[in-house]
């Protein structure tokens, strides 16, 4: 277990290093970073001060070390648009993104898991068909389009829910459904096929032969084992929800990190964008790490692989 942990944590660190390196290289490849902050009206002193601050008079590897040190301390430079530290803006936006992520995750579990179980147990019924439909739409409709369609139907046509923003408590429903649908579909498919496999296994047949009631077989013997792949996927989901939020927040004008990253992209706000991306990657990598450790804890086969 210890060896696994060390190896896995080292991997996460290397990934983060790789991301910061990519961002650093690209920020230098894009041209003189001083042009981002200064214009023709800036004085020579401004230029000199910035040169010193960014370490542009030093070799590249030292510049990267400076960048890395600042990143660890959470200093990513000032946003060009807002003229204040990028980290400050990010911290303001974080709660909205977390809220949306949790809501979407709950939706994907609440819809995906029961439908997955039922469509496996009641194969070929209306429930199974409903499940298939949910899965098909979720896996092939682009998230941004699904979001627009939901908005059109429930906000514009029916007027049941607010179309965008985060003013009302019900505002979160549409973005959460749009974001969670894909994962609900994935959960459903995973659980359905895992359940079918398990229901066909020897130990379930044995349980049935022993005379265990049908309900007990499904809930105690089958479901517990079928949940393993779903659990792994839940981990991947948690991280991927982070990026999915970029699209959904843009569609529904949800004031989180995802929307911020697109605003930074459109406004050419490189310092802000790089900060958002480092934070996003950090969350993604941390989520994956956590899940892997949990998973290894639950399933010993992983530890020794």
């Amino acid at each position: 277990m210890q060896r696994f942990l060390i190896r896995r944590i080292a991997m996460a660190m290397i990934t983060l290093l790789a991301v910061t390196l990519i961002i650093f290289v690209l920020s230098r490849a894009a041209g003189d970073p001083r042009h981002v902050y200064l214009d023709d009206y800036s004085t020579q002193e401004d230029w000199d001060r910035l040169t010193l601050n960014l370490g542009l008079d030093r070799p590249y590897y030292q510049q990267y070390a400076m960048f890395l040190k600042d990143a660890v301390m959470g200093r990513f430079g000032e946003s060009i648009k807002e003229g204040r530290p990028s980290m400050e803006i990010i911290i303001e936006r974080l709660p909205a993104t977390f809220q949306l992520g949790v809501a979407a995750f709950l939706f994907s579990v609440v819809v995906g898991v029961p439908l997955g179980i039922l469509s496996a147990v009641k194969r070929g019924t209306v429930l199974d068909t409903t499940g298939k439909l949910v899965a098909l739409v979720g896996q092939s409709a682009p998230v941004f389009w699904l979001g627009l369609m939901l908005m059109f139907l429930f906000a514009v046509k029916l007027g049941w829910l607010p179309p965008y923003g985060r003013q009302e408590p019900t505002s979160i429903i549409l973005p959460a459904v749009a974001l969670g649908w894909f994962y609900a579909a994935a959960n459903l498919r995973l659980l359905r096929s895992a359940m079918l496999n398990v229901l066909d296994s020897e130990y379930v047949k044995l349980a049935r032969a022993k005379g265990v009631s049908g309900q007990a077989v499904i809930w105690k013997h089958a479901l517990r084992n079928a949940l393993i792949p779903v659990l792994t996927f839940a981990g991947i989901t948690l991280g991927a929800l982070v990026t999915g939020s970029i699209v959904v927040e843009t569609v529904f004008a949800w004031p989180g990190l995802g929307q911020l990253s697109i605003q930074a992209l459109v406004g050419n706000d490189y310092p802000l964008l790089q900060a958002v991306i480092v934070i996003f990657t950090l969350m993604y990598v941390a989520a994956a790490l956590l899940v892997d450790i949990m998973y290894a804890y639950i399933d010993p086969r992983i530890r020794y692989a």
Partner: protein
Amino acid sequence: MAEITSGITLAPPPVRARIARRAGQLRRLPLIPILILSIFVVAGLAAPLLAPHNPERGEVRARNQPPVWLEGGNTKYLLGTDHLGRDMLSRVIYGARISLVVVAVTLGIGGTIGVVLGLVSGYYGGWLEELIMRLVDIKLAIPTILLALVLVLALGQSFLIIVVILAIAIWPRFARNTRGEVLQLKTMDYIALAKVSGASTPRILFKHIFPGVVNTLIILSTLEVGIVILLESTLSFLGAGVPPPTPAWGSMVADGRDRMAVAWWISTMPGVAIMLVVLSMNIFGDWLRDMLDPRLRQLE
């Protein structure tokens, strides 16, 4: 004796069963998805011949016209027009062309890189394998969309950048799958025989091992097509994809975003196109997987 020999007539059923099974597979041939995919490919290849109007030039007087089946629709514009008076049908057809080119180029580049790295790392093993597989892990741990956003902001928006981003996004899965297959294949007797008979390493890799991987690659490619189309359209929607006015499906959906109440078809039509193609490709890919490799059926 006669009774015993008559018992031998048991032989035919397996053959008949096999034929029946074969027929069953053919019956399950996903006709509608194949039809949709054919339309997609033909539309993409022959867009200039099929499109009734110029996809990039609109007629100002014909802005926001509804599709033909709605009130106010016009047979001149079967799927209506957008906010600049451009024909939706022509734009959807040209959009198919963009998607088709992106898919072909991306799979060509990303697939080739992935397969070569997978072959090499699986066959040689050692530090090379370790290095390549750790690269795969790192790439899979970085969200593609984020990477794309930085690349686009730093290097600008262009067709080339999009293809590079998508190729970077897909090579790891090709490398990982190829390596897995190679690890199994290289222990086979016929590979040892080839070695003993003095075949060179490149010859073993490409003549003896590669053919064994092809089935997996075909299946993987069909499944990647949907992923590439969704990724490309997402990037285009976010304004980081193929630059306008080129009619990419994703950016067309973005065009109609703020006009849902007035002209819902601007966003709806290209979205339906994306969904139909991705859905058909996934169904077709699943079917192909069942046909080519029954072992993978469990992975559904």
